[in-house]
């Protein structure tokens, strides 16, 4: 929980580079927290009228491998918005988050010069490549063959000049809207060299990012009256005397850098635990400042208490401008964007959910730099899981995300709702651009992993699960964890093999669905026919009338022997033997996903029995001879196995449930009556267009 003081004023001089702006550089972490492979010094000037950025970048890249590196590869993310032929635009059909790019809203980035520090010009060597799809029109990745290879563990320093134009309105995270600018994925950014190759994917419609850690020193020049928010800490602001000011930001052990600027921001500051929170709010959301800060408090305290220390000194929360929702709900190191609407009711916890979610990324993506291109679930999925846990703890147990006009929905229910419509188009672990479509990507990267981990939590227990998350976080901080690493941690902490679970949950599209398919209750009659002379009363001594006997059959011949058990309940009253009933229950596994389940049997005298089924066979039959009639049988009565796509078929009752059906029916009847009588009430629906 302890953190380095923000400015542990060991200022050192940072003189190299040709930036001219060699200011004193603060040190946030005297001991580097990461390998610091990719380090940037960038000087950037915004020209608001043209939405253009003019940048000078010095990249210091350390070869982390034992290979001789003959070429470098870079991302030019903004080129995704260059035209409608880019891979991003082709895949997305020009639509991101339900929004189209503006008619003349295209954006781009151009590297105008690139050279080795010291002078050798390499600009002509740049070559666009398309490692993922071979689309020749895509210019989001380029390779740079080097005149001399970078030796193992060696360093290369490059000077890069670039010019960029931001899309408008903000599209797929970045862009400009009038006086508001959100600048993300904006500079030439080196890929990740690992396992003997470059991992540098194109910008896809449904992919996010992957990068190495480093130190960033960024000088941002904007109109003097503008307020700036950015990754890291603001070291100094210098007025340039020409109506502009330069804001110098410094960040350590981060793998990305984003910034925003607007003259309209209202600034709120508050210290939450050991984190300085700065909220940059739009003026029309002034009355929601408290709400944003409270949500930040919930996020920070829960994450630090449950999962581990947030090492950075600060967090900036940006509220995107109206008409700029394309930049809402996004995460960058120490800087996140939220998103709200004027008049958003308190009971619709969109602000809370988005802040908890985006802050969560500072853990699952920015402190654990997984590969979002290839294994998006490691970030979004784990983050959705923690978001659900925190929302429920803070605002639950019911209606944690919506509690409005009598409608109460938990985030968990909402995620499950998304999942059950698209349960089997893809497995979770897949490259982001290879999913069936955007919905399947989002279901498999967010909702389903959230449900997978909740199911695991309910299986292992909440405490053990939290320990898994903590261990995973502590062990993989500032590294690049893969799915296998998460599984290894889970198995180690759980102390058991979980391959059977993860194989199905992460690497297959198997659907989990258990159902009670039939129940039959019959009075036990006296045997008839040959060989039978004894009455039921007579058999009672051995069969135990008034006692309980359970037998199970399944398609396996030996099933009865495998699981049959007898539990004797108190049969004190031996004088008057009640009528025995033969209660039979058939349960089925309707999906391919095998998972152990608990089955509860409730009888009309109040007796309750619980059985455990490993769930492997296609079906199983339970038989109980008891002095009571079965009321109902239910699989997973507490709904712990949230991956089950159908809870309605999890139970069966002996009697028809008229009361419930009637209640919903009369409510529906009344709504229709009202609507027929007053159709004008429908106009009220427009109030809920948020």
């Amino acid at each position, binding site marked *: 929980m302890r953190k380095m003081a923000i400015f542990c004023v060991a200022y050192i001089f940072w003189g190299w580079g040709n930036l001219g702006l060699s200011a004193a550089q603060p040190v946030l972490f005297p001991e580097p927290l990461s390998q610091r492979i990719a380090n940037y010094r960038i000087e950037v000037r915004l020209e608001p009228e043209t939405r253009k950025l003019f940048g000078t970048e010095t990249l210091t890249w350390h070869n982390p491998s034992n290979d001789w590196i003959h070429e470098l590869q870079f991302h030019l993310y903004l080129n995704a918005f260059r035209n409608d032929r880019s891979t991003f635009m082709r895949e997305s059909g020009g639509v991101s988050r339900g929004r189209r790019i503006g008619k003349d809203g295209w954006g781009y980035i151009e590297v105008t010069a690139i050279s080795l520090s010291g002078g050798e010009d390499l600009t002509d060597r740049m070559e666009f490549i398309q490692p993922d799809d071979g689309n020749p029109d895509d210019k989001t990745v380029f390779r740079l063959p080097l005149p001399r290879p970078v030796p193992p563990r060696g360093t290369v320093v490059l000077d890069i000049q670039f010019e960029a134009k931001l899309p408008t309105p903000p599209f797929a995270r970045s862009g400009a809207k009038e006086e508001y600018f959100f600048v993300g994925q904006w500079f030439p950014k080196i890929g990740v060299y690992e396992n003997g190759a470059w991992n540098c994917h194109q910008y896809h419609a449904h992919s996010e990012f992957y990068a190495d850690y480093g130190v960033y020193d960024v000088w941002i020049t904007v109109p003097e009256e503008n307020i700036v928010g950015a990754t890291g800490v603001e070291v100094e602001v210098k007025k340039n005397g020409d109506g502009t000011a330069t804001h110098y930001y410094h960040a350590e052990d981060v793998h990305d850098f984003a910034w925003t600027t607007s003259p309209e921001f209202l600034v709120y500051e508050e210290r939450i635990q050991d984190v300085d929170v700065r909220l940059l709010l739009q003026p029309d*959301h002034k009355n929601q400042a408290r709400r944003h800060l409270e949500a930040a408090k919930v996020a920070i305290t829960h994450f630090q208490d449950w999962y581990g220390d947030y090492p950075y000194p600060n967090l900036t929360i940006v509220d995107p401008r109206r008409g700029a929702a394309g930049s809402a709900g996004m995460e960058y190191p120490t800087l996140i964007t939220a998103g709200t609407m004027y008049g958003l009711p308190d009971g619709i916890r969109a602000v809370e959910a988005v802040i908890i979610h985006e802050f969560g990324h500072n853990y699952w993506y920015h402190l654990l730099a997984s590969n979002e291109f290839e294994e998006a679930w490691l970030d979004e999925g784990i983050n959705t899981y923690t978001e659900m846990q925190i929302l429920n703890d803070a605002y639950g147990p019911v209606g944690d995300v919506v509690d409005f006009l009598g409608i109460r929905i938990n985030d968990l229910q909402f995620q499950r709702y998304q999942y059950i419509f698209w349960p089997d188009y893809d497995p979770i672990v897949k490259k982001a651009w290879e999913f069936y479509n955007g919905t399947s990507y989002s279901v498999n990267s967010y909702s389903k992993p959230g449900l997978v981990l909740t199911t695991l939590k309910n299986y292992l227990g909440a405490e053990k699960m939290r320990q898994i998350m903590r261990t995973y976080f502590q062990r993989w901080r500032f590294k690049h964890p893969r799915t296998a690493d998460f599984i290894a941690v889970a198995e180690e902490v759980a102390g058991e093999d979980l391959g059977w679970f993860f194989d199905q949950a992460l690497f297959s599209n198997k659907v989990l669905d258990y159902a009670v398919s039939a129940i039959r209750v019959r009075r036990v009659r006296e045997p008839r026919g040959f060989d039978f002379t004894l009455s039921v009363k007579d058999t009672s001594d051995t069969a135990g009338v008034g006692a309980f006997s359970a037998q199970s059959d399944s398609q396996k011949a030996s099933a009865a022997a495998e699981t049959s058990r007898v539990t004797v309940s108190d049969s004190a009253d031996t004088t008057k033997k009640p009528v025995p009933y033969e209660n039979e229950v058939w349960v089925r596994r309707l999906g391919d996903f095998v998972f152990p389940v608990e089955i509860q049997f409730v009888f009309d005298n109040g007796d309750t029995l619980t059985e455990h089924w490993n769930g492997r066979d296609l079906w199983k039959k339970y038989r109980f001879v008891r002095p009571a009639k079965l009321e109902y049988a239910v699989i997973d009565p507490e709904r712990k196995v949230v991956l089950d796509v159908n809870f309605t078929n999890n139970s069966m009752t002996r009697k028809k449930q008229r009361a419930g059906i009637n209640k919903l029916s009369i409510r529906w009847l009344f709504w229709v009556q009202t609507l*027929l009588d007053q159709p004008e009430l429908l106009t009220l629906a427009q109030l809920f267009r948020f």
Partner: protein
Amino acid sequence: MVFSSLLRGIRSVWTYRRVVLLFYLANLLAAFLVMYPFRAVLGKFAGWSLMGKFLAGRLDMDFFFELLKYRQEVFPALFGLLMVVAVLYWIAELFLSAGAFGVLLQGEGYSSPLFWRSAGTYFFRFVRIVLWGIPVFIAFYLIQFIEVGGQRLLFGRDPYQNVLYWGRWIRIGLQFLGFILWLMVLDYARIIAVATEERRMRVVVWQALRFVFGHFGKTFLLAFLLYAGGILVGLAYQPVSNALSAPSSVTIGLLFIVQQLYMMFRMALRVARFSSQAVLYQKMAGT
């Protein structure tokens, strides 16, 4: 004059209770036609599940989402049925209103033969009133765009969200206003058609417009009071309905009774509206 008309209108509800009953039964029957298939679907989906039992309490959202998923083909059909039933219901309602105005304007209490005879006599005229009322409806519907224009004028093309938000409320208010005005014109047109035996409905609608706006203070106050009364009772219904949330059969039965009493009140309000407006018209036209 407005209040005496209102009082007479309210008093006449009891006299014309059979008309109220007819309106109520038509409404119940129409809604029942939409409810019944829904109930059958529900019964099949959850009737033998514990979910069916839980439904007696609060709406279980897991269940609701599963219903949307596993019976997704049902909802478009149900919506289509609702639309068809709505159109049929509004036609039936027009037919009944022809009978209602017939007996109300005659002013001598309810008479079954007179009711049905009037219904037959005036129904097609009323249909023509509604058709002539369509341009009137469009005109009133456009009232709401005052807000859009005003907003553009005052706040430009890029207003803050609080402007958009409150503008939306104003727009809803104007939509309701347009709707009330339209209903007023239709009501008085029907009254004039019956009272004057004028056969050209174009003329009747025009006369109704002139009457409504010629005596706007009175006609609007009367309509507003009746409309507001309906809203107040509607607001009072909500907490009662919420209180009746216990999952027992008795409570569910009680809820049903309260709902139907409320619907009867709505129908009584309709008869009171017809009646008090007829009284007001007769008084004004008489003077």
